[in-house]
């Protein structure tokens, strides 16, 4: 079959920041040369892509994955012809359309109708083609009633839907898609997927750049993993995605060695229900409850990583969630803390709204089940910890802002150990404090830093037997402590590190001591074995 495009030893150098933004820079540069000062190679220049070889056949759907700055967007821009390679050769055959930014061609003051024509012709459509596709574009975007409204009055959703709709009607051979599928509601996303599938069926080529590994797996027939401008691995999607995920789990200190469950991390999050997962909780039969800050819900997964259901509708009010941060299973209920809603809500395991724990919260964050139906809530804005009885009454609250013993600066999570002692991660004081059953201060451990016993923003906690786990957020690692020495001292026994861009925030242990971790700023939840105390 014919190649849609081919990279032959392609390298592209880019410059960080401004480049000779004014004549003065240019003049000082040339004067420097004039007076014999050798001009060093621009220190801000770097290879966004280096010696890239890649062949893609017409009709393939190829996924590009990699960390930020890996060169994914540069690759798309080269294919689109927006940039030219510094070295090597790039052959592209056919018409290329780039959905690098939806609605980039829209002008806010023009109406939807005018923008369809303008945007279509920017993307290379002929007026006659646009006229022919017009009805279809409008109905796909679902903006019939707003055709003659300036797009500046459109909601974000309408704006993006219209942009996508125009792009989907392009008669192109190669479609470049950069991280745009996560737009609109679930209904529209399904429509987009259908449209892309049809596009594929017509033998067109798709290049799909995304952090959303689930979408990559379901759409693409080939995946390329880029890192620092080079291809790390390319080929069969599942294989490449697994290698990509395994790459994040690479360093171990001490004796803690976690092993990622690749099926889980790869098959995570199938319908994009989880965006920015935070707090996690695992039920007795191993179902995983994940609070999705940006997905405005709690997503429930089977132990195999299939999405079972979501709890809560987006919004503020009874039964609605806006920024759910913590989740806990206590008694027969699911408790969810909502930072924006300033409340903790209780749902049945089936997701029926049961009531709210209002308390005096400002920004309730971490939740922890306590005994028979009780609940512990940390409020990161009031810097206090609240304890509730099963009936939803405040038994006690303690804390207050400060850096002394028993004071907090952003208490973000709490956990109880077998003896009933409470551990609170004190985020901005970079320490974990320990309290006895009467919540008298016992000890604290950790200080700011990246050394083995230091923290950089300790997040979630999990305890089992004499072992305490701390998600050391900005140090990209999970640390393990032996807490048999408490009330005097907790002893560091090991840490498991991740690639720097992976910041563990939520953490929970399942019935077989499998560990679940959620990663800040991503859609990723990982399942790990190896956390069981030796």
């Amino acid at each position: 079959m014919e190649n849609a495009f081919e990279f032959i030893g392609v390298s592209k150098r880019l410059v960080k920041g401004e480049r000779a933004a004014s004549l003065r820079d240019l003049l000082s540069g040339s004067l420097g040369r004039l007076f014999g000062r050798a001009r060093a190679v621009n220190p801000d220049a770097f290879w966004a892509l280096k010696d890239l070889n890649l062949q893609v056949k017409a009709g393939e759907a190829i996924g590009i994955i990699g960390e930020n700055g890996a060169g994914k967007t540069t690759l798309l821009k080269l294919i689109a012809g927006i940039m030219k390679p510094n070295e090597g050769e790039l052959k592209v055959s056919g018409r290329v359309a780039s959905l690098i930014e939806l609605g980039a061609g829209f002008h806010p003051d023009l109406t939807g109708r005018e923008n369809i024509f303008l945007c279509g012709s920017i993307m290379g459509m002929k007026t006659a083609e646009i006229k022919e596709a017009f009805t279809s574009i409008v109905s796909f975007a679902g903006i019939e009633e707003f055709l003659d409204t300036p797009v500046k009055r459109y909601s974000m959703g309408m704006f993006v839907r219209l942009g996508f709709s125009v792009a989907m009607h392009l008669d192109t051979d190669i479609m470049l898609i950069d991280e745009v599928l996560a737009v609109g509601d679930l209904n529209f996303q399904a429509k987009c997927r259908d449209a892309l599938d049809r596009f594929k069926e017509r033998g067109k080529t798709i290049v799909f750049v995304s952090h959303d590994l689930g979408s990559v797996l379901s759409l693409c027939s080939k995946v390329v993993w880029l890192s620092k401008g080079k291809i790390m691995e390319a080929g069969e999607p599942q294989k490449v995605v697994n290698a990509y995920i395994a790459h994040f789990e690479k360093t171990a200190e001490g004796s803690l060695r976690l092993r990622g469950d690749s099926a889980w991390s790869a098959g995570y999050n199938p319908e994009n229900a989880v965006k920015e997962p935070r707090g996690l909780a695992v039920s007795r039969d191993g179902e995983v409850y994940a609070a999705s800050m940006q997905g405005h819900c709690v997503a429930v997964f089977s132990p195999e990583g299939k999405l079972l259901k979501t709890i809560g509708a987006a919004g503020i009010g009874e039964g609605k969630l806006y920024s759910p941060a913590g989740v806990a299973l206590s008694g027969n209920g699911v408790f969810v803390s909502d930072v924006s809603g300033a409340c903790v809500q209780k749902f049945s395991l089936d997701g029926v709204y049961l009531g709210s724990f209002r308390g005096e919260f400002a920004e309730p964050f971490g939740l922890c089940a306590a005994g028979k139906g009780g609940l512990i809530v940390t409020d990161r804005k009031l810097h206090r910890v609240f304890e509730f009885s099963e009936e939803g009454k405040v038994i006690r609250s303690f804390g207050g802002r400060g850096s002394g013993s028993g004071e907090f600066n952003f208490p973000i999570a709490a956990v109880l150990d077998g003896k009933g002692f409470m551990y609170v991660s004190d985020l901005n004081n970079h320490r974990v404090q320990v309290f006895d059953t009467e919540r008298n201060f016992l000890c604290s451990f950790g200080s700011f830093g990246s050394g083995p016993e230091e923290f950089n923003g300790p997040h979630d906690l999990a305890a089992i037997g004499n072992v305490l786990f701390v998600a050391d957020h900005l140090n990209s690692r999970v640390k393990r402590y032996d807490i048999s020495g408490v009330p005097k001292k907790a002893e560091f026994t090991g840490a498991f590190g991740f690639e720097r861009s992976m910041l563990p925030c939520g953490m929970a242990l399942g019935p077989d001591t499998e560990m679940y971790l959620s990663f800040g700023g991503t859609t990723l939840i990982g399942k790990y074995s190896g956390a069981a105390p030796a």
Partner: protein
Amino acid sequence: MKKSLLEIWQYRELLGGLVRKDVKLRYKQTLLGIAWAVFSPLTLTLIFTFVFSRFAAVKTGAIPYPLFVYSGLAVWSLFSGSLSSAVPVLVNNSSLVTKVYFPREVFPLSAVFSKLIDFALALAVLLIMLPFFGVPFSAGLLWIPVIVLVQLAFAAGLALLLSMGNLFFRDVKFIFDSVITIWMFATSVIYPIKSPNHLINNLLALNPMIPLIDAFRGAVFEGGLSNPVPFLLASAIAFITLFSGLALFHKLEYLFAERI
């Protein structure tokens, strides 16, 4: 060159769309709408007529002074207006320049062409004014399309060069703002330009806008090209500017997305 012209031709509908957008947006949410295209030169004409009839006598030969000024301003606004909107046009559209591929020439070219609508209106008003000042219509008017074409070529060439210059060095816009004002006073816009100084006259001969405006006045008021040689020279300069603009623009276009 041939390739770049062909590509621009393929995207002619986009060029048309951008021109329509420019015109539509320029007068959107204004009360007078497109009447501003005529209102501005008329106001300036009144002011200059007042000033120059009261304080300094300007000899404009057979052409009544108000018509002299108005015709000069109409042509000059087409030139300066199209350039001042073209200079920042690539930078203002940076999101498109960095994200979508199409010949970037359409931006500066559409900025130039969109001023043509204003000029057409200003021209219509000029033609209406002629009988009131006792100027007869002549066959010389047929020269207008040719003269306008040469002007467009000159403006388009400069627009390509300056918009590109401004993308690489933002200083260009500031330099342009000063130069265009000086340039107007060094052109026969509001007074016929002639200097007793030989050197200055030679310098002025390098300014293609003088023969272009003079040719326009000749076509409207004197029944034809009164002075064809300078006009031919100016036309040569105009097309050389256009072609070198197109060539350079095409050559450096690939750098736009990363240097903007």
